[in-house]
């Protein structure tokens, strides 16, 4: 009993030759096919380097362009040669020039001897396979593909579209059920010779000549006619990225490959000296009888594919800059914005920090500077508090802050005096929780000693800013969780309002709020608002302010309705 290797090579022939010599000296025959695009000098050098091994022979050369029938022709020819020259061979293992044996030949031999009639070939029907690229799965078998996908992409696409439009369909030869699978297989002598000597082979060959990527379907389909036992998995460890290109192994994968216990891995970077040195070493200790377990490698590569496809939510950087609507999360984590709270409550940010156990910022978008938690001039990630830097790109400022503090919920205050250009971005962000109390600017303004016309202008400015903010937050495209109260609505029952915000921030909080923020004195606010009105400005953001006096006049417990009972 013996295994023979068929090797398809087109680059890095020195590496391929080293692997072939490794197998040959262990006693396995090798048939090498070299693509016709390789210059003669290189092939001659390869032949010379293998000359000392009678077990290595070379088969007739074909042009093996990716996705064409040439690869199948080369395989057929080399496999036939293997069967003819080496009658002792019971299994033929198809490999490429960039494959590397990970376990000694004896182990593979023993593994195959335990299951002598089994064919190891991934072979699944098109309906079940989810990994084909470009949306061509069933159509591979029913359309014609005379043009190279790599070299004449436009022709390829146009011809495919035309066939779809015309409704042209090829007839699949009778008895064939199209199957797909990895190109790399290990077939038993019986099955392989039955496939190669099938009386209908000319019909099948003619059909597969125009199938797209026949090397992934020719043997995979035909073994179903002849095999008695198919193990639908390849013995070659070979992973593909999201665009169907094979992942490459490098020196730093050494331990990972060792622990995978696979027999052969593909594809190895030709410069990976350490890998070639380690795995072609015949003194290597054997791990007898272990089943291949490529799960760890699978995980590594699927994580990489996910990183490439989805990226890290909330990250904007040199190689990830999603256009609007494709962000997969506008920001790195949830955050809370409190608008108008700082003028209604004293030291609201400090109270927030204490109650929620986090670092709450002051007015991040204040006109003078970004008021980071703790009053620092720089914050996580060396983010500067300079207003000019912030206002140069407020969106970057916010997304940077949230990225730098990922894992830690950010809370910050805003007010009508702040620069709120970033509000539209926040409104469209599902991570944002925006709580707005409008009209609280009336509280500090009512106590301002300046000339009333100046105060009135200020009030008008604030009111305009809040009107704009409400317009932004009222847009149908809002994804943020938005709560809006007028001053009067809010002070009627502030604790319930704050509790609802906090419940959303931390739904599993063990107990309700115990300590309350100190509310500013509201006496005089309604007089002030009436005066504004008398002067010709309509305060629309406050609510029915006459209710304030009624609340203040109410008995003691009603005067402080925000106390938890």
């Amino acid at each position, binding site marked *: 009993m013996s295994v023979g290797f068929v090797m398809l090579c087109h680059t890095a022939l020195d590496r391929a030759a080293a692997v072939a010599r490794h197998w040959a000296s262990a006693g396995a025959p090798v048939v090498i096919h070299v693509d016709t695009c390789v210059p003669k000098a290189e092939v001659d050098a390869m032949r010379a380097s293998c000359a000392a091994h009678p077990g290595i022979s070379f088969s007739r050369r074909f042009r093996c362009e990716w996705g064409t029938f040439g690869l199948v022709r080369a395989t057929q020819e080399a496999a036939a040669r293997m069967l003819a020259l080496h009658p002792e061979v019971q299994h033929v293992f198809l490999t490429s020039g960039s494959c590397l044996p990970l376990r000694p030949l004896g182990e593979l031999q023993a593994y195959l001897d335990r299951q002598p009639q089994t064919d190891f070939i991934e072979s699944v029907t098109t309906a079940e396979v989810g990994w084909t690229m470009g949306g061509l799965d069933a159509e591979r078998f029913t359309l014609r593909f005379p043009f190279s996908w790599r070299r004449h992409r436009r022709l390829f696409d146009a011809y495919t579209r035309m066939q779809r439009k015309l409704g042209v369909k090829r007839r699949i030869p009778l008895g064939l059920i199209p199957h797909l699978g990895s190109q790399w297989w290990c077939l038993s002598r019986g099955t392989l010779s039955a496939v190669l000597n099938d009386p209908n082979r000319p019909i099948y060959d003619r059909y597969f000549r125009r199938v797209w990527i026949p090397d992934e379907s020719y043997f995979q389909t035909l073994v179903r006619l002849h095999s008695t036992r198919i193990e639908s998995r390849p013995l070659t460890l070979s992973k593909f*990225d*999201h*665009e169907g*290109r094979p*992942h*490459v192994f*490098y*020196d*730093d994968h050494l331990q990972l490959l060792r622990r995978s216990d696979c027999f052969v891995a593909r594809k190895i*970077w*030709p*410069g990976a000296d350490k890998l070639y040195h380690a795995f072609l070493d015949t003194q290597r200790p054997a791990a007898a009888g272990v089943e291949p377990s490529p799960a760890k490698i699978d995980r*590594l*590569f699927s*994580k*990489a*594919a996910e*990183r*490439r*496809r*989805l*990226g*890290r939510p909330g*990250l*904007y*950087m*040199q*190689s*990830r*800059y*999603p*256009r609007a609507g*494709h*962000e*997969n999360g506008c920001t790195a984590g949830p955050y809370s914005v409190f608008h108008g709270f700082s003028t209604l409550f004293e030291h609201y940010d400090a109270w927030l920090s204490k109650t929620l156990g986090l670092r709450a910022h002051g007015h991040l978008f204040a006109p003078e500077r970004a008021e980071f938690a703790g009053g*620092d*001039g*720089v*914050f*996580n*990630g*060396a*983010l*500067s508090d*300079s207003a*000019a*830097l912030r206002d*140069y*790109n407020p969106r*970057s*400022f916010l997304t*940077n802050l949230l*990225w*730098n503090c990922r894992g830690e919920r950010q809370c910050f205050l805003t007010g009508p005096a702040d620069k709120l250009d970033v509000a539209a971005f926040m409104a469209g962000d599902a991570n944002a929780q925006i709580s707005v109390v409008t009209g609280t600017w009336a509280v500090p303004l009512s106590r301002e000693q300046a000339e009333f016309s100046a105060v009135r202008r200020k009030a008008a400015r604030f009111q305009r800013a809040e009107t704009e903010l409400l317009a932004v937050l009222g847009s149908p495209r809002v994804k943020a969780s938005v709560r809006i109260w007028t001053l009067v609505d809010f002070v009627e029952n502030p604790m319930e309002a704050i509790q609802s915000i906090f419940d959303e921030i931390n739904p599993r909080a063990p107990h309700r709020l115990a300590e309350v923020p100190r509310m500013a004195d509201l006496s005089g606010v309604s007089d002030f608002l009436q005066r504004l009105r008398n002067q010709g400005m309509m305060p629309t953001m406050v609510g029915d302010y006459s209710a304030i006096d009624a609340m203040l006049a109410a008995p003691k417990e009603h005067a402080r309705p925000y106390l938890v009972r």
Partner: protein
Amino acid sequence: MRALERYRLRLRRKRFLWRAFRKRRELSVAADRTGGLRPDAILLFATLRNERVRLPYFLRYYRQLGIDHFIFVDNGSSDGTGDYLAAQDDVSVWHTDKSYRRSRYGQDWLTWLMRKHADGRWALTVDLDEFFVYPFCDTRPIRALTDWLDGLGTRAFPAMVLDMYPRGRIDAQPYQEGKDPFETLQWFDAGNYTISVNATYGNLWIQGGPRARCMFADSPEQAPSLNKVPLVKWRRDYCYVNSTHMLLPRRLNLTYDRSGGETASGCLLHAKFLSVLGEKVSEELHRKQHFADSREYLRYAETLNEDHDLWCKWSEKYVNWRQLEILGLMSKGCWA
């Protein structure tokens, strides 16, 4: 992009190539060893002036990465840079005394040399104070990266400039020839970069870092650009537009993913803030050969004069490329 706009960019590229063709006469060969280069050699291109102190480490670093051949334009060095380079086996040097500014800050000269020598090869274009870091650079040589990019059919690889700085005054620890500059320049800013899209060229415009934070806080729009595309599988009709910040044809600048994913990218660790900066600044201010009337150098001079510290308590200490990857400054893409 409208056809007219595309045509305008094409004309601009042709003009740059024409400029390079005319400026070829300003170059005289000092050592040309490009004759025996293999067709797949990986080349490094740089313009330099009086960088003798920085050279030994620079060459060592890039030889270790696997650069096959260095091509330099020596712009009137007087400190022995030219002789030192001419004596290296894997270096070709051209010499010129002509104006750096009028050669588009050295780009015209390099465009000519790249047109002649880099066609069909991978070319890395950097400054003498930029050190290329890419995913797995500690275990895989640069050829592993270029082979992988070839497999993807990607021709341009982006790397953002990451300004590295010391803790304390810039001139506190004198730099010695041959030493790793990042023994002193251990710190960088991790997360204060602003990004916008340059509609004309399609590239991302990245600003920020310690220079924006400390020197341009009052005029952020003038802060230096940090986006670069230093590694390109060159073709003779390519050209850089503005330093290596962007290229023509325009499609080469689309190195980022726009649908939420991440493509692979690297960083250029920027060893500008070494003790040798002081001499450089006074010289460059005198020569006035740099971009925007050497605006940057004016700021450096101010910074050097004031007892200034770029370091702050949120500065990040450099460890390796994996750290930069985790911080989101660069990405592995689907390379694993």
